[in-house]
């Protein structure tokens, strides 16, 4: 696993895992997986496995953090010690604290914060297995968990990354590509409002490259959005269909 692959993109233009340059990893999403949480979601994005739970709106503890005109959104992004090759200390690292903030700020525009003053919404994101692009998958799952909990939202939030690997712009980097590649651009999008809520860039890109990376990432977002919506509907449609079958019998 620690061997450095010679080429990240082969002669046919296929990547290490056989994907085309503009191809997403397989995504599987499930909603309502934690019965103790008010809302929850689970996502498998390639080899990433991420669980998100939402609690609230509820009373603020400690009380002095409450805001008189809006709700407080709290996010905790955490990686399980077994989520990466080398054991990760369970204590929140600098990186995790930053990602918590990034996830919070990309979800905030989607929530009607002013509806429930003096309350708090807790979002917990637990990475069970990581393979590059966890922040994007986390945002996708957290937005679903929020919608599942019944918190009013302007739109769902979907996130996807694009980057530069061996002088080529590619969609949805996995861990090796992220580490050996030269740039990574995660983008979070509210698809119906066509509003970007997160845009970061790590590495060096020319303006043209940056633009094509953002456009590619947006395309990826839209593909994941379809799956996200489907997952949310499936939770309720399955009950509907069961009854249909019963009626037909």
């Amino acid at each position: 696993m620690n061997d450095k692959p010679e080429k990240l993109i082969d002669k046919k233009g296929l990547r290490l895992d056989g994907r085309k340059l503009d191809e997403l990893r397989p995504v599987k999403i499930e909603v309502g997986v934690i019965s103790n949480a008010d809302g929850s979601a689970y996502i498998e994005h390639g080899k990433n496995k991420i669980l998100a739970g939402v609690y609230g709106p509820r009373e603020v503890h400690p009380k002095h953090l409450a805001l008189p005109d809006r709700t407080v959104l709290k996010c905790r992004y955490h990686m399980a010690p077994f989520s990466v090759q080398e054991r990760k200390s369970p204590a929140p690292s600098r990186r995790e604290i930053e990602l918590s903030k990034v996830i919070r700020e990309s979800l905030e525009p989607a929530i009607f914060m002013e509806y429930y003053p003096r309350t708090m919404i807790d979002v917990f994101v637990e990475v069970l297995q990581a393979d590059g692009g966890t922040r994007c998958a986390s945002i996708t799952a957290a937005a679903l968990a929020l919608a599942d909990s019944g918190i009013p939202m302007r739109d769902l939030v979907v996130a996807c990354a694009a980057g530069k690997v061996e002088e080529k712009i590619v969609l949805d980097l996995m861990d090796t590509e992220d580490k050996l590649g030269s740039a990574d651009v995660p983008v979070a999008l509210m698809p119906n409002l066509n509003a970007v809520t997160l845009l970061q860039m790590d590495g060096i890109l020319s303006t043209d490259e940056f633009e094509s990376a953002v456009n590619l990432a947006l395309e990826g977002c839209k593909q994941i959005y379809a799956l996200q919506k489907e997952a949310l509907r499936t939770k309720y449609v399955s009950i509907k269909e069961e009854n249909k079958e019963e009626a037909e019998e």
Partner: protein
Amino acid sequence: MPIFLEKRQLVTPGDLIAEGEYIAGENTYMEKNKIYASRVGIVEYETKKLDVVALKSFYVPRMEDMVIGTITEVGFSGWMVDINSPYPALLRASDVLSRSFRPQQDDLPQVLDVGDLVVAKIVSYDRTHDPQLTVAEPGLGKITRGQIVKITPTKIPRVIGRKGSMISMIKQETGCNIILGVNGVVLITGKTLEDEQLAMMAILKIEEESHTTGLTDRITKMLKEAKSGKEEKKDE
């Protein structure tokens, strides 16, 4: 000015419902003359006003609502009540005692203690103040017996049914008295535990399948079957 969705269609937050001169009703919002859904739910409309009936939500207090709550804290001159909402409710001692409260003589935990359940009405609430309750009306007060079921608050209207058809049917079939708290807490009191459990089952089934059609008939069927099954056992 089209409506993009049919009646009773499932929507997720951000779905565009209509464009033009419509009124954004419950669980929807308007932006740039377009109406979007803000919760997972089912679209309902009559002429101008568009609503989304949420499939899951939480209780937001409103004045005059009848709720069922649990005492969480005994204070100096009243109780804190958990009414299944983001905000804790306040119940004043003078209200329960229906006279002015005398700190020297009145022992509050003896009147209502932590864990007790009360049926109460909300007398005041706004964005800046926590809700305040009253029990000084007939039918309100401490709950002494029965079963409690919690369901999503938005589904209370479904349990009531059109003009109360669903709830009166359950009451009739099970012989239980049912009090619906608008906050999603339901109190069932019946003659026997079996009757109460049957009513509980019916209400939980309604919650799970609230977005499907022909529910009243299915629930009636289920209750009748359960009852006849019980009678057969008795005959044996």
